[in-house]
């Protein structure tokens, strides 16, 4: 069926491997940034200010209602012009690489989803957690870092895993802005060898394997984040009074 020599195949495999590294790098950078901004935005939107709330609603509505592909194109094609508007003459000369465009676009889009998750999780925490921290005179920074956010992460984990796998499946879009990632490498190899079927199935399997691996790790992380509840009968952690 195939008429590829082994040496040729090895060459393409190397290219695919390099592409996979680019994809992975893009994905991890974007997810880390989106996570950091998402948590910060999620906390910021708890403020009672009407303006903060309105800005959040508009931001979330826009980026949850528009395809990521368009956001990528917008940052890639319009990025330098936007920088020019902000930074003046100096900014206009900065060219946005496809990689940077992808990272910016995914960060902006997925920070909205993560912020929504974090908001929901914080609102689901018993009020006593905040009141207790305040009563013990725990400074805000330590309260967030040691009391609230660990519990928030436990509540938000299933949603975060969802976002993680969704974002992973959207990373190939950046290849349409010209990034030489796994999918671009597969497309080149498929075109050159006239064996598109094998290369695209292999690429799909790489993505599936990576998701399977990350689900495994997420399961471990869940066990770890649940360690405070492990002594309870598992299955129904009710919102019990923390006396």
């Amino acid at each position: 069926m195939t008429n590829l020599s082994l040496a040729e195949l090895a060459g393409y495999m190397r290219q695919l491997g390099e592409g996979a590294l680019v994809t992975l790098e893009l994905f991890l950078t974007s997810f880390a940034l989106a996570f950091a901004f998402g948590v910060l935005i999620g906390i910021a939107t708890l403020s009672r200010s009407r303006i903060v709330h309105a800005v959040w609603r508009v931001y979330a509505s826009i980026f949850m209602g528009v395809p990521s592909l368009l956001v990528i194109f917008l940052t890639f094609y319009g990025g330098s012009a936007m920088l020019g508007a902000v930074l003046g003459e100096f900014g206009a000369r900065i060219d946005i690489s496809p990689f940077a465009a992808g990272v910016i676009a995914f960060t902006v889009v997925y920070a909205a989803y993560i912020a929504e998750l974090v908001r929901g999780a914080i609102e689901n925490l018993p009020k006593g957690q905040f009141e207790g921290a305040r009563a013990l005179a725990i400074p805000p920074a330590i309260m967030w870092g040691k009391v609230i956010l660990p519990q928030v992460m436990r509540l938000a984990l299933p949603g975060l895993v969802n976002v993680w796998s969704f974002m992973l499946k959207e990373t190939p879009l950046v290849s349409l802005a010209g990034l030489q990632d796994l999918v671009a490498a597969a497309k080149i190899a498929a075109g050159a060898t006239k064996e598109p079927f094998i290369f695209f199935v292999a690429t799909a399997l790489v993505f599936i394997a990576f998701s399977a691996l990350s689900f495994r790790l997420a399961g471990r992380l869940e066990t770890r984040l649940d360690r405070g509840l492990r002594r309870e009968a598992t299955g129904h952690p009710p919102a019990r009074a923390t006396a």
Partner: protein
Amino acid sequence: MNGLPIDPALAWGSLPALFDGLKVTVILTALPLLLGLALAFPICFARMSSRRWLALLAEAFVTFFRGAPLLILLYLVYYGLGQIEALREGPFWILFGSPFGCAIVALSLNHAAYMVEVLRGSLLAVPHGIVEASEALGITRRNIFIWVKMPLAIRYGLKAYQNEVVSFIKGTAIVSVVTITDLTAVANSIFEQTYDPFTPILCAAAFYWALVNLIRIGFGLWGRWLNRHNAEGVAADVLVPGRAAALRRTSDLGQVTP
């Protein structure tokens, strides 16, 4: 550049083309939604079947078509299937020979895989006691499914279905890679003609945003109608009990998903 990066004249002038693109996007959404749903039911039954080989086969289908990025599925159908001689000679070539047919096939398979999980989650959420009660009343299995399980499952799974439909619409933006002139492709071609990076893409984004929010409103009304017998406010929170607590690789019903 003036304050706003949008050129109103260009935006106005490109409206007809954008509407044409929107029409293609809507067709490319509606057809796979129907086909995918039709495909999801038998696969879901296979997935829940007690026959192991059938369940495994269905699970493999779901794992592959859910796990593979849509772009790769599209490339696979568009470039990959043309390699198979039998298919090229066969009668289905009318379907696989055109970019439109390929996009429909790839999108339907992807949507079906997601819908299998949504359906399965919703069906599993139906309390078992209700089914047992219906059996005790001597209702046939088919009637139990149609009149007891499905109506409840729709209510449990509506939120997950809405999320899937919304993310699916946004996912269709990639069909321009196989030369279909959908909304994104129209915006791109206007950009290539005018080198205005903002106006066409922002206009297309506004169209997508409107479409997505129309769907959201529609689902909101549907949900309200389905739960019209419930007290106001309670209806909004008909979530699957205990589902959000556990980490599940399947769709988390009620969770916000992209």
